[in-house]
């Protein structure tokens, strides 16, 4: 552990690096859930998010370490659902490889924390011929997922546009799910 942290300190202590902030949209779990009674699945859910990133050269002019911290703002799950919501916070450890002028391929691993919030209460619903009371829990729970990341980025002077994909549970054929972001970043 100590050696690992020392290596990180050395890595971040390089003289050449840049940093930036970004905004964009996050589309979680493409095709995994059904959106309406007609049976259509989710494709483009543009949940707004913000991010901050660094860019540290590993090999001169070609390869960069590009860590990123992001937060997808809390959003409601169903259209009328006011008391239950979720948000994502993520950390990415990507490497960025320059293919040609200003164009990069980004790849790495990441961790997503899905925070699911619910306000306590109860309600009686139909249940067959009668009714039953069901309960809304009053706790916030965090589900942690690791991802494999792959995407492209085009830089133009102080801004960049990127499309990143995130494979949740990448080694599990049943649970594997694709999410992606579209991001506009500004180099500070």
């Amino acid at each position, binding site marked *: 552990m100590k050696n690992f942290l020392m290596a990180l300190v050395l890595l971040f202590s390089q003289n050449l690096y840049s940093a930036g902030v970004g905004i964009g949209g996050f589309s979680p779990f493409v095709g995994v859930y059904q959106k309406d009674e007609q049976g259509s699945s989710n494709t483009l859910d543009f949940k707004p998010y913000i991010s901050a990133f660094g860019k540290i050269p590993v090999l001169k002019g070609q390869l960069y370490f590009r860590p990123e911290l992001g937060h997808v703002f809390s959003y409601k799950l169903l259209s009328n659902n006011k*008391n239950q919501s979720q948000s994502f916070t993520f950390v990415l450890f990507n490497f960025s490889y320059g293919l040609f002028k200003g164009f990069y391929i980004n790849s790495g691993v990441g961790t997503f924390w*899905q925070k699911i919030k619910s306000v306590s209460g109860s309600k009686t619903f139909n249940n067959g011929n009668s009714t039953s009371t069901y309960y809304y829990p009053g706790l916030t729970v965090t589900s942690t997922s690791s991802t494999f990341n792959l995407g492209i980025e085009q830089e133009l002077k102080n801004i960049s546009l990127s499309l990143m994909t995130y494979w949740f*549970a990448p080694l599990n054929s049943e649970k594997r799910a694709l999410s992606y972001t579209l991001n506009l970043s500004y180099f500070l």
Partner: protein
Amino acid sequence: MKFFILFISFSFNLHAWTLSSGAITRFPSDTIALNVATNDSCSNAGITHNELLNEAFEAAEQYWNKVPTSRLRFIKGTTKAVDAYSIANQTSGSVKGEILLGCKDEADFNTLGAIAVGGRSITFPDGSISKAWVSIDGSASSTYDSLSKTERLAVLAHEIGHAIGLGHSEQDSLMYFSVVPTREKLSDDDIAAVSWLYPNRSDSFDVLGNCGTIAMVGGGNGPGPFQFILTAMLGLFISLMFSKRPKASLL
């Protein structure tokens, strides 16, 4: 203005997904076996025990096993005779770590007005589910065999949802209280519900997405070593971001 007030009064304080009980109850294990009791015939429901087992597993795979943010995973079990199995005493035949499915030829289904029922019992102080069941109407008036394959899978997945601790939802989703003929996947609400009740592990590098513990605000497990590393990296990253350094040149 009065329409606005009416809108506000109807749109506030709405929820969607629920739990079956006020206390949080869940299976203690990440993997749950689906078994079928052979005590009662399923002929009135139009299927055999093996077909019920296959359909239950297909339902679990199509719905619950696909959630990347939940540690829960269903596996296919076997058909077996159990000591006792009835709607009035549904859990007596099931054992810990399984959901016991079966057909029942009982008048209770007419009283309930249900195609199938699902539930669980809790005998442990920590809220762990000890036994769980899904019963299909096997009476002469059963309408199970009149359902399409899509509807049958949705019904089984819905009842499995009750067996793992989820309640009804008030909006269109798998856990909605009525069968929706076009329901072929979970809704984002169902995904949030099962991820809330069975979240992925917070203390490991979970690329397999199939193990987990609970991490709750105000309780539960603390951060593990992987999260500590991430936190340390974040601290370094943020502090260095705000220090004065020359920018790297673009390619």
